[in-house]
């Protein structure tokens, strides 16, 4: 038995560590609460009432595509990668859904599965190029973004197609925020992922690829799976987008490339990999939706909407960074 190495140090309880190591998560929920509060204030000023079930439902339904894309983006960013093709995958899967889904249960189920598989296949292409081909993620996914956008236009040259109302009701019921259940499912999946060998591998790769490899972790396989999962979640985003719009548009997904990265950053996921949570990214997605909602009710000239969106975003990121630094220093 070796001798005692040093005096015993006071141990902080497990939960104290858990809080300390999840400051980013706490911050984004604080940010979300602040955004909701601000929204309620503006809503009250305009309507002399508080937002209710309708507002909640439409907020949730409008956020679903971005929340899905952000979950996928989180997994890739955790490996210290970036998936710019998210927008292209949403374009393509959205167009596919609008063209193919018929108004019967068999078609809906089958095409949902096919669309998710298409997303997986597109993600797999990214993953193989980045993981096996050892190419830079930004270049690879920028190129595939363009390719997927091109394919989407082939599938649906003009906005159109139709999504059966029952499909819309199943995914994004316009009357009740049932879509939250899908999010709940995603959170459960995330918690399981975090405690699985795959989750450990993906976090480890983002921590230090070389060290992960030295520890016997299959780095290439981990990256391929991360991009594939990102494709699946982007495809789910495409389905939700089609369901909310009740029709297809081969360019409607383009904005999601950047907004998914924004949601991830707001959600406290570190762009250098290895740190973050999809739960935070989902909250980040809701923050971006709330910013748009707030602007809508604050009677800002629509021409300036983009300007203020950017301004709010910077403020949110700066406040988050400053608070995070202060909290860490107190530790």
């Amino acid at each position, binding site marked *: 038995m070796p*001798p005692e190495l040093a*005096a015993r*140090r006071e141990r902080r309880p497990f939960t104290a560590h858990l809080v300390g*190591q999840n400051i980013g998560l706490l911050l984004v929920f604080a940010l979300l609460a602040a955004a909701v509060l601000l929204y309620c204030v503006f809503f009250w000023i305009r309507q002399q009432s508080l937002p209710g079930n309708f507002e909640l439902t439409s907020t949730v339904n409008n956020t679903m595509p971005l929340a899905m894309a952000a979950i996928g983006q989180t997994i890739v960013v955790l490996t210290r990668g970036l998936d710019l093709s998210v927008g292209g995958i949403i374009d393509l899967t959205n167009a596919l859904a609008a063209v193919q889904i018929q108004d019967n249960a068999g078609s809906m189920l089958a095409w949902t599965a096919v669309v998710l598989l298409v997303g997986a296949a597109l993600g797999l292409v990214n993953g193989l190029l980045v993981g096996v081909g050892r190419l830079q993620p930004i270049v690879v996914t920028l190129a595939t973004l363009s390719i997927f956008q091109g394919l989407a236009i082939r599938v649906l040259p003009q906005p159109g197609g139709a999504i059966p109302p029952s499909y819309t009701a199943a995914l994004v019921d316009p009357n009740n925020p049932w879509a939250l259940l899908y999010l709940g499912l995603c959170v459960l999946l995330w918690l399981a992922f975090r*405690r699985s060998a795959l989750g*450990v591998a993906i976090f*480890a790769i983002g921590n230090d690829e070389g060290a992960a490899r030295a*520890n016997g972790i299959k780095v290439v396989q981990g990256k391929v799976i991360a991009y594939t999962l990102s494709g699946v979640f982007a495809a789910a985003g495409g389905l939700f987008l089609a369901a909310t719009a009740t029709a297809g548009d081969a360019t409607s997904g383009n904005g999601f490339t950047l907004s998914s990265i924004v949601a991830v950053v707001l959600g406290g996921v570190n762009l250098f990999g*290895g740190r973050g949570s999809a739960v935070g990214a989902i909250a980040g997605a809701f923050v971006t939706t709330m910013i748009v909602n707030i602007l809508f009710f604050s009677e800002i000239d629509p021409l300036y909407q983009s300007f203020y969106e950017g301004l709010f975003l910077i403020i949110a990121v700066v406040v988050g960074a400053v608070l995070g630094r202060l909290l860490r220093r107190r530790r």
Partner: protein
Amino acid sequence: MTESEATAGGGSPPAVAAVKLAKSFGGVRALNGASFAAAPGEVHALVGENGAGKSTLIKILGGRLRPDAGSMRLKGEAVELHGPGEAHRRGAWTVFQELTLLPWMTVAENLLLGDEPRGALGLIVRRRMSRDADAALARLGIRHIDPDALVEDIPLAARQIVEIVRVVIREPAILLLDEPTSSLGEHEVAWLFDLIRELRAQQTCIVFTSHRWNEIASIADRITIFRNGAEVGTYRAIEEREAITLMTGQRLDTLFPPVPPLAAEVPMLEAQGLAAPGISAIGFTLRRGEILGVGGLTGHGHRELFLTLFGALRAERGTILVGGEALRLRGPRDAIRAGLGIALVPEDRKTEGLLLPMTIRDNLTLAILERISRLGVIEAGAEAERTRRLADALQIKTPSLMQPAGSLSGGNQQKVLIGRWLLAESRILLLYDVTRGVDIATKHEIYELMVRLIGEGRAILFYSSDAEELAHLCHRVLVMREGRIAAELAAPNLSAEAIVAAAVRDSLAA
């Protein structure tokens, strides 16, 4: 006495054997037909200069690199390893020199990586992981490391210990350690050696590399010496002097060159009542032609002192005088302009000092870019000329100065760090642990360089974790304890023992 390969370690078959392994990187031959064998229950040291191929050999045995030629046997079986995972399955685990911990994961997650306790649905149970890790640490006598802390939040020495513990708890049959002591203090080294002795008693085969001869002599059962990518021989006992001759191929009569006495009392750098985070009430005078040592146990403010003198840390109180004039340091730029140069060998070599992917030449001229530029454009001719002369003077071993600095061995990287400030015409050099992890021949070159520099009228403030080195090279030594100067030692009271005694006096008294 040399032994033949066949009889390695007596009767039992070797736990690990390398037979004529070869490995090249680009055009450089790192291993050139290297062989050795170690038996179960044996502690086997691999020694040699930096670049002799020890690390490459360990990486091959650990499955991280694949050899170009040759073969190896683990537990008597000929194997080809396709990755570290395969080596692990065969019972060979490695503690690598550069840390392979995951910084943003907890100590517990790192310790149990790949072996996590599972609950329902095969999912990892984090609370149990924390408890298991704590138990594993406690079993090895470690109670000061919190298993729930992030690795990036614990000190470097603790990280090295976690790295070792992580491997030991997998109960390896073959334990490979690449320079495990280079960032450990004396206390931790004693702990590690007790652990190694215990593992040896359990018939574990332990192969390790080290540059510290007294460590090798105190624990190794046998020693294999390497030179230029191949073994010179395996020995049961060998004198340090003889080993150095075998490692370098040349005779080093004295490791430490004679240091000339001070010619005159000309103060170059003075600190008066200096205080900064981690240090307080620091006062000293560094004179022209002097090597002033700074010693003591790691973590007692040396690093902070050096960073403060260089302007990288803001002083809270006190004065810094250069050539008798008070200096206001707003940042390293002011220090450089005043003639200070720092070779701060970072605790984690990769993160400070050198820009490893840039060329050696760029690294050398980094601090004088303004001086060799005209209208913002670097004059290539002037740059090439100056750096070539300097590299010759410093004996930097490289085929070309256009190679990335990262391609140099540790000792030669240190020379580049020092060389940068010579080009900048710094008259006061702050050298922080520049010889750590450096092989003996290069150490000797650095010592000679230091003596030459003070002969040219420069002054050197020299921190080293090696008390022997301080005792031999310095005119005086300041011993720091808890951020203050606890003692000033000068001949005839200057010795390695006196430095260590002054560093731990209080803790012994307590």
